[in-house]
């Protein structure tokens, strides 16, 4: 294997690698702005300069040249090199800022230049706290500026499109955003306009930055020049916890971070997973953040009247027992694999037919990238559990013939989905696990059990490509089952990690009185004589992975942050 010597340490590399990415992969930090692994390499920010050279060889013989001590002589490139664009070569000698004052000096000078026209408005900038320019200026920059003149003024608060706002003064012209629209989203809507110290990224006159993936440019912007319209001035980044989890927007299983303050989801950003969404997510998947905060129920109810959890469980259990097996269980493509699995067990114990689910596939509503035709996140999970889509015609026929006395709906809304109408449900008892008070089936529900959404539970979603991925609780719910959360080893919300109920970001009022399916279904099962005692959702998934070949290997531990690709089970509906 060819070798490169970085700061005196030899590393082996494979042909075709470039220095900056090679360093970053090995934890050697080299400051940079314009380089992004998913984009082309323009080397225009000049921040990743290193000193590099190749071993000197005798021209005639090709032998390595040695000095009087027998050490090989290095011919350094006459100028510092941008490491992002430097192809590694065998024997290359590299000195980064850790090793060379020339390099650290050049990097500091470069930062001083970059900061000449950069407004130092970090105290009001949304990027502060997660800003590569701020971080790298602290770490590698000069102690102050020698620039005593008025800075160049450029447009501020420019609404580039529905979701992105530009502050051109903050821009350092790294061109990450324009390269994103050119190379990744291919909308070609942004370009750097003007020249010299007055240039900035902009749409063409008359055009709007309405790319359905536009907000990705705010993630890759290394300064606060491009910000998400919905999140501007909402919170400082250090006031929020961010939890790595999975988006429930559609069937792609987009890996995200949920940002939480005051126990409310304020922001959703993509999380790198090269097997799924790489670095990106559609705007629509971010703009659902209100879903998790608003219109959430305040505890269970029986026949529309508020009750407590025990009474609601009792009611559900007595309805199930009275139905003599004439129960239809509707699983859910929004619920986790664990919850659907428990529902199957419950259906089996009741002696009813196997659960079905409501398909949320809307043909033609997706694109060929990260927006799926499937609006629900766990359709594959249901299919792999052999839970099949419900046939509305058949279901209505059964209901009218009185073959179904109790409809048990897990985390879905049959009326809004158009599967049933309110008339169909007259004369049928309905048990409903619901997310929102806007659930249209709610007023037909005899026992309504608020359910934890994907941001409040632990569990597994299987995306449409058959990748099992794990949900982590990003926010707390009322009466949280803390022992289970701890057992899972991941269930740490902001208060667990950073605060106490007495800190100023703790807001009990925003804790939803709901239960995850893996807590409420066993509670009902116990009342109908079925013991579903699992120590944690992880234990449920361990059993699923062990007993069902379609989930082979998908334990919580194996899924970790990046998920597990499941074996193909063939085409599903």
């Amino acid at each position, binding site marked *: 294997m060819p070798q490169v010597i970085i700061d005196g340490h030899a590393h082996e590399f494979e042909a075709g690698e470039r220095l900056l990415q090679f360093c970053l992969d090995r934890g050697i930090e080299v400051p940079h702005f314009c380089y992004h692994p998913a984009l082309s390499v323009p080397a225009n920010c000049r921040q990743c300069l290193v000193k590099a050279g190749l071993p000197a060889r005798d021209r005639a013989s090709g032998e390595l040249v040695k000095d009087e001590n027998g050490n090989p002589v290095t011919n350094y490139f006459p100028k510092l090199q941008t490491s992002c664009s430097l192809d590694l070569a065998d024997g290359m000698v590299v000195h980064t800022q850790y090793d060379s004052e020339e390099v650290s000096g050049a990097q500091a000078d470069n930062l001083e230049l970059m900061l000449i026209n950069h407004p130092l408005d970090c105290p009001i900038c949304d990027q502060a706290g997660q800003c590569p320019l701020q971080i790298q200026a602290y770490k590698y920059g000069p102690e102050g500026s020698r620039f005593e003149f008025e800075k160049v*003024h450029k447009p501020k608060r420019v609404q580039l499109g529905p979701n992105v706002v530009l502050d051109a003064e903050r821009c350092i012209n790294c061109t990450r955003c324009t390269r994103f629209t050119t190379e990744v989203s291919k909308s070609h*809507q942004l370009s750097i306009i003007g020249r010299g110290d007055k240039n900035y990224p902009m749409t063409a006159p008359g055009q709007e930055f309405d790319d359905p993936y536009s907000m990705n440019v705010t993630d890759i912007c290394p300064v606060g020049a491009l910000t998400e319209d919905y999140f501007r001035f909402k919170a400082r980044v250090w006031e929020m916890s961010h939890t790595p989890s999975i988006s429930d927007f559609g069937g792609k299983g987009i890996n995200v971070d949920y940002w939480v303050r005051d126990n409310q989801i304020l922001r959703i950003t993509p999380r790198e997973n090269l097997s799924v969404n790489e670095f990106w997510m559609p705007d629509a998947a971010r703009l659902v953040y209100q879903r998790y905060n608003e219109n959430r129920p305040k505890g269970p109810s029986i026949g529309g009247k508020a009750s407590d959890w025990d009474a609601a469980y009792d009611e559900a259990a007595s309805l199930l027992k009275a139905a003599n097996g004439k129960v239809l269980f509707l699983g859910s493509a929004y619920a986790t694999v664990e919850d659907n699995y428990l529902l199957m067990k419950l259906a089996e114990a009741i002696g009813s037919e196997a659960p079905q689910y409501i398909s949320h596939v809307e043909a033609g509503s997706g694109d060929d990238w990260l927006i799926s035709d499937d609006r629900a996140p766990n359709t594959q999970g249901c299919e792999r559990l052999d839970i099949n889509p419900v046939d509305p015609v058949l279901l209505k026929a059964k209901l009218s013939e009185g073959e179904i006395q109790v409809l048990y709906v897990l985390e879905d809304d049959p009326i809004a989905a158009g599967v049933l109408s309110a008339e169909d449900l007259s004369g049928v008892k309905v048990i409903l696990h619901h997310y929102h008070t806007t659930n249209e089936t709610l007023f037909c529900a005899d026992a309504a059990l608020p359910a934890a959404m994907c941001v409040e539970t632990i569990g597994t979603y299987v995306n449409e490509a058959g990748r099992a991925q794990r949900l982590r609780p990003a926010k707390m719910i009322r009466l949280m089952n803390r022992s289970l959360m701890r057992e899972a080893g991941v269930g740490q919300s902001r208060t667990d990690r950073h605060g106490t109920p007495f800190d100023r970001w703790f807001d009990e009022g925003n804790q939803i009185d709901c239960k995850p399916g893996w807590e409420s279904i066993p509670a009902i099962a116990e009342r109908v004589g079925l013991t579903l005692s699992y120590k944690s959702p992880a234990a449920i998934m361990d059993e699923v992975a062990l007993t069902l070949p379609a989930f082979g290997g998908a334990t919580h531990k194996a899924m970790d942050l990046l998920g597990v690709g499941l074996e193909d089970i063939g085409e599903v509906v």
Partner: protein
Amino acid sequence: MTQPTNGSLLQPDYVPGEPVERHFADADLVWTDDEQKQIATFRSEYPTNDGAVMKVLWMAQNKFSWLPPDVIQFVANTIEVPYAKVYGVATFYTQYFKEKKGKFVLDICTCFGCQVCGGYDILHYLEEKLGIEKGQTTDDGLFTIQEAECLGACGSAPMLQVTNGPYVHNLTKEKVDGLIVDLKADKMPGFQSVTLPQDETDLGGNRRSDTEAVTEYQTPPVSETIH
């Protein structure tokens, strides 16, 4: 450099998504057959259409005399390059006119070399003579005066350039007067090759073999106002 036309540095010239003023009708935004052939040739000269952007913009400027957004978009559509990209190119180069200019654009160099030799003297003289300030156009639409950075002819300072074309070297007030008279008579100055001191002996006086018009090198003057 595009100067903000709305008077505010903190607002862009246009709001993204809002319609912009049109300066040419669709019926005017067409290429002749000859022009289309020329564009096809430009496109065939480069591996991608991006390469032809500058040449076609140049053609459009010669045809329409300036490049408002509707012309830039017309160019983008013609060569199938994204509009934003073509707009970025057009705004980068000062030689592309994003604003309507006079028939003759006088770029007076005031960069260091010309400055010490009287570039500003010439600029101010022209401003007074034509009754406009730099960046403005005379009411008859004939002249626009612009201040330019180094045009690479410091040996014959002070100098100016006429409408992205010929240079006028070794300017004096009398020479400027003559130039204005000529231009008003629609007589463009011709190309002048300026000799360098060392050429006098080594090259028989003229470095260029393709031109007859030669101006002998002369020691540049010193600015009246800068000492």
